[in-house]
């Protein structure tokens, strides 16, 4: 009985992992297809579709998405740091009110925030011609709750008496900030930067409404293209995006060492 249950458990874990990885594997295989037709077991492999990625059609939205994600992650992390400091150092019952306010955009589905933003921008005539600005504002808005929460958890996790210890030992405020607080904050800041970058790069609901000709993110460009055809060039585009994200996460993890904050209980 226990044995059967154990086997069932193992089989289901393997099957679910396979289910999770299957579409990604299929995309990688499709990107290497030698012809327009995507085969389960291709006879030969080819890199021709990756040539398509390096044309203006895909390169321009890709560059735009990277710029947008970089700016968003910087803005959202700075604002999140401000919010987190206010919450963590405002020691009275009201700090939970401040925190709820800073997390409030999470209460609405992003697609609802996206249409509300488009209508509001249109009302104040910020709708067209501003390109990246409206997208940056929209993305930053939906990332601020995430960064605030990550950095707040980080501040709560470190020993606050270290700061007092530094001042008792004669450190100036600047020295305490440089040698005590910043190193302690590093994992939280890097986690916030990495996550807001990925979430902005992959964002659909906000970009859907705020993208416009000349200021379109790669996700929206792919969706628009998918509405009338499926071809392996898209697989190649997606594979390039995935590689960029994986390299970026690896580099940021190398510098910031934030991954342990992910699967630790808070």
């Amino acid at each position, binding site marked *: *009985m*226990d044995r059967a*249950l154990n086997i069932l458990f193992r089989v289901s*874990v393997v099957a*679910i992992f396979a289910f*999770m990885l299957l*579409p*990604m594997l*299929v*995309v990688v295989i499709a990107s290497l297809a030698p012809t327009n*037709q*995507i085969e*389960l077991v291709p006879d030969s492999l080819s890199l021709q579709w990756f040539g398509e990625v390096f044309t203006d059609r895909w390169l321009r939205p890709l560059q735009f998405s990277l710029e947008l994600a970089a700016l968003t992650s910087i803005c959202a992390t700075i*604002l*999140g740091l401000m*919010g987190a*400091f*206010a919450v963590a150092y*405002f*020691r*009275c019952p009201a700090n939970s009110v401040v925190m709820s*306010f*800073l997390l*409030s955009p999470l*209460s*609405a*589905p*992003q*697609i*609802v*925030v996206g*249409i*509300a933003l*488009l*209508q*509001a921008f249109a009302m104040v005539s910020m709708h067209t011609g501003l390109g990246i600005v409206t997208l940056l*504002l929209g993305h*930053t*808005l939906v990332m*601020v709750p995430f960064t*605030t929460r990550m950095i707040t958890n980080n501040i709560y996790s470190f020993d606050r008496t270290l700061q*007092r210890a530094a001042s*008792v030992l004669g450190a100036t405020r600047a020295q305490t900030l440089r040698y005590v607080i910043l190193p302690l904050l590093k994992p939280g800041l890097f986690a916030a930067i990495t996550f807001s970058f*990925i979430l902005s*790069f*992959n964002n*659909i*609901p906000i970009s*859907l*409404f705020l993208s416009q000709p000349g200021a379109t993110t790669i996700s929206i460009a*792919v*969706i628009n293209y998918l509405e009338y055809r*499926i071809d392996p060039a898209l*697989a190649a585009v*997606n594979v390039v*995006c*995935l590689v960029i*994200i*994986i390299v970026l*996460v690896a580099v940021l993890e190398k510098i910031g060492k934030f991954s342990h904050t992910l699967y630790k209980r808070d």
Partner: protein
Amino acid sequence: MSDPAAVSLGEPKPAERDGAGNRGRFLALVPAMPPGLLILLLFLFPMALMVGISLRPNDNGMIGEGFTLANYGLFFSESFYLRSFALTLTMAATVGALVTILALPVSYFLARTKSRWKTLFILLSIAPELAGAVLRTYGWLVILERDGVINQFLMGLGIISEPLQLLYSFWGVVIGMTHVLLPFGILSLYTLFQGIDPNLERASAVLGANRLRTIRSVLLPLALPGIISSAFLAFTLSASAYATPALLGGSGFAVLATLIYDEMLYLLNWPMAAALANILFVVVVMIAFFGARVEGRVNAKLHG
């Protein structure tokens, strides 16, 4: 108070707390102002504006004069809208249940395994998250299409002679949505199982319970509040997803999110789009609230 360090490091004296202390506290709020202002101007103001727009009539692609409840009236009387509302809830409930069921064994495995590949397994379960919804939905398009991977496979084996219509169907969307939300489910249940002491399961086994009995009488009751909150989270996230239903469901698959997009950008009916967005918002908040109540009820039963 005999320790001198405790005196100098302790809480400020009452006099300090009343005077400079209070001002210090409010000064500490100053850094919250830039993010607060952002939320005020880009969240609360647009949401309020949208409620206003939803009460305007549609005037041939322009926002008309005067106030009316007609947009909401249309939603609750037109069968087209009611059907898409029902479809949204059915899809979200199915996806919420599937995500939770599939996340349970994997997250339990991740929390309990002592394998030296544990970090790799955790990375593999977060990896789909890095890939984003567009890549994964595209992968499912390739798999589910008429001459896609599944149909090629089944026809190659001779199990079917005609390709199955998998794409542009309810179950196609459900599979894609489940895949998109599974990492969320796994991560939230993983922290839940990590918080349950494995010694309790051992104790149960020592006392003679078999695995099934341990799961039913020890593990499940402890995990239930977390399972409920994860299921409701998956429900609300899938109720408001756009890309996967739009791409895997095709033009005939109308859920609230795709309707909002069409009303806004194709039909240019901004008041109706605003009304639909408000309805979606209210539904999601109500479901989340209901979920929190159920979770609280179960929690009280567990600890009461």
